[in-house]
């Protein structure tokens, strides 16, 4: 993850990255976007983590798609459904367990972003820049300010918040029932 962040930092670089090079060719020198300044560093951090986890989530959705029996599509096509109706009324409801799993793991995992946040904020002025994630706060409390008890409290609070969010999502999506079979 560290190396991925460093490579993306060199791609998103203000002067020597290919994205800004393309923008410079098509739009002139004023069209360059600074991806790693204090306003945009959170979006860049999000993009790096999206890039990293997209393949895994695609694989999970693919496995979920394989589990849907073909008979549903055939009988719906016989009844005269077009592609959009097939997608909305057969695929999406039957993908509900996989969707719940992907959402919960993505949400809880995104609360725990730490290594890429530490690496990406080095040129933007240290972790005191705009990319202070909650894990940075916990480690800074514990190892810079030596308030170990307070840091443990923040960690427990993070745990409670993650558990609440996961519980809300499980209830909202009715993840204990499935429409297959």
């Amino acid at each position, binding site marked *: 993850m560290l190396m*991925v962040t460093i*490579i*993306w930092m*060199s*791609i998103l*670089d203000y*002067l*020597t*990255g*290919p994205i*800004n*090079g*393309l923008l*410079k*060719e098509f739009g002139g020198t004023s069209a360059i976007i600074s991806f790693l300044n204090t306003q945009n560093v959170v979006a860049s951090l999000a993009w790096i983590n999206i*890039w990293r986890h*997209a*393949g895994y989530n695609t694989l999970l959705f693919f496995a979920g798609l394989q589990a849907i029996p073909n008979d549903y599509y*055939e009988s719906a*096509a*016989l009844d005269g459904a077009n*592609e959009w109706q097939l997608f909305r009324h057969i695929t999406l409801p039957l993908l509900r367990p996989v969707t719940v799993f992907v959402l919960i793991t993505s949400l809880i995992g995104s609360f725990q972003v730490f290594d890429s946040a530490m690496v990406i904020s080095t040129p933007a002025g240290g972790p005191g820049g705009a990319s202070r994630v909650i894990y940075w706060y916990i480690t800074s409390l514990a190892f810079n300010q030596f308030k170990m008890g307070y840091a443990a409290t923040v960690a427990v609070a993070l745990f409670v918040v993650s558990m609440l969010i996961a519980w809300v999502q499980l209830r909202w999506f009715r993840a204990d029932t499935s429409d297959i079979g």
Partner: protein
Amino acid sequence: MKTRALSHSGQNERPSKRRPNWGRILAWSILILWIAITLLPLWWVFRMAFSTTKDLLGNPSSLLPIHFTLDAFKRVFGLVDVNEIIIQGGNVQKLDFLLYFRNTFTVTTTIVFSGLVF
């Protein structure tokens, strides 16, 4: 019922052979774009490995390696002496890739064997 299903699917197959299916073209183009975005950092690393250090800063936006050269590889394997490194503009430190690889290999084999045996 079976023959009815067969004739129905035969009727569906005929139109999509003649005219281009725009939905399918759109889906494939999005997929190809995403594949390109996913492989971009890997290609970027290859490009940086095969370019000279000075030209990396000069031509930021070219996607191909600039002045295809193997100098960086020679330096990593420890085949380049200190003056050449200063000319190329790198950190003046002799690198020895085979030593690092041997260390990694030692650690890996130890971990794998311990995991299998214990």
